[in-house]
């Protein structure tokens, strides 16, 4: 008698604990979106750091760039792979958006998915949005 009750209890417990997995199995889950490389970024292939490091550390890099430009007035950046960049988010050809032309298809792709909301664009302007 006791044995049956315990086993049903256990089954219900396991089902409940694993409910997020069941839920995900039943509903269609969205795979993480791939940011789109367009235009120059597609042909260039070489960013400031390699792909994986950019993915993981681009925010730290941008932070470093910001301090360098604002505080030390150093605006040119020659990365370890020999490419030089204009340390700027959105102005000029050698800036981030100069290569990654479309903010909505690049930055926003992951940021929206991961629901991070960096406040870059409160001040910095997306040349596409200005027309």
């Amino acid at each position: 008698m006791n044995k049956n009750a315990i086993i049903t209890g256990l089954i219900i417990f396991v089902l409940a604990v694993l409910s997020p997995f069941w839920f995900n199995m039943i509903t269609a889950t969205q795979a993480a979106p791939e940011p789109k490389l367009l235009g120059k970024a597609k042909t260039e292939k070489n960013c400031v750091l390699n792909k994986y490091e950019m993915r993981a550390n681009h925010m730290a890099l941008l932070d470093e760039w910001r301090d360098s430009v604002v505080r030390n007035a150093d605006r040119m950046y020659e990365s370890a792979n020999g490419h030089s960049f204009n340390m700027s988010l959105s102005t000029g050809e050698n800036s981030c958006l100069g290569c990654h032309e479309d903010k909505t298809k690049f930055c926003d792709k992951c940021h929206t998915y991961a629901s991070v909301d960096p406040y870059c664009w409160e001040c910095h302007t997306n040349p596409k949005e200005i027309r």
Partner: protein
Amino acid sequence: MMEKSRRSFLKVAGIAAIGLGAAPAMNFAASDSHGTAHAVKSKNKKALHAQRWGMVIDTNKITDEVVESIVEACHKAHNVPDFNIEVDEKKYPNTRPVNHKQEVKWIWEEEFHNAFPDKEDEFLAEKFHDLPFLVTCNHCKNAPCVQACPTQATFKREDGIVMMDFHRCIGCRFCMAACPFGSRNFNFRDPRPFIEEVNPTFPTRSKGVVEKCNFCAERLAKGELPHCVEASEGAIVFGDLEDSESDIRVLLNENYTIRRKQSLGTEPSVYYIM
């Protein structure tokens, strides 16, 4: 049958520990990417340098038209909002009405007795009453705003420019209280709807930060002179105050100049030829 002594066990354990520690170090050395460690940051080759940037404004050459074109050139280039313009309702619906006490300006026209309150004599030459005086941030040598800023968002660059890091400004407005020249303005609201034509090469500001003239640091970095100097038709001269051979020092040597509120000891870097 080998008897394991404590001694031999410790030996093996020690070697194993070194091996464990070596693996990550080897991996690190073997990786081809060096992160940001080997990057070189530098200035643009064309960038202008000075020990202490300063400005001389020739009040004899400043007319109302010149003032207008200077203010427009500066404010347009730096995306300074103008709260008198009609807001584009389609782009920015439900913008709340403007409080005209809240203005933002980087360079503007002031009357003599406001610009130089300590120099207002009883029988001041009449011409000074109507002359337009251009005033802006003085980029003081002993800038009180820099001392007041709790986050070092306002700081002094090596070349004497009092700069703002808008990222870092928390909007406490201590700097505005500290500045004796009223050169700083607070963004009480999002300035974007009030910028007629956004200049994509310079960021706008966001709600809750203070802003002021930056001596066109972004132009100096490209080897260009500030917008106001270019638009002034020769009325404003820009240069290195510490270089005794510079144009600006020659001018200062040849003319009688005054500075705003000198008695406060902030040592402004903007001089006025009278």
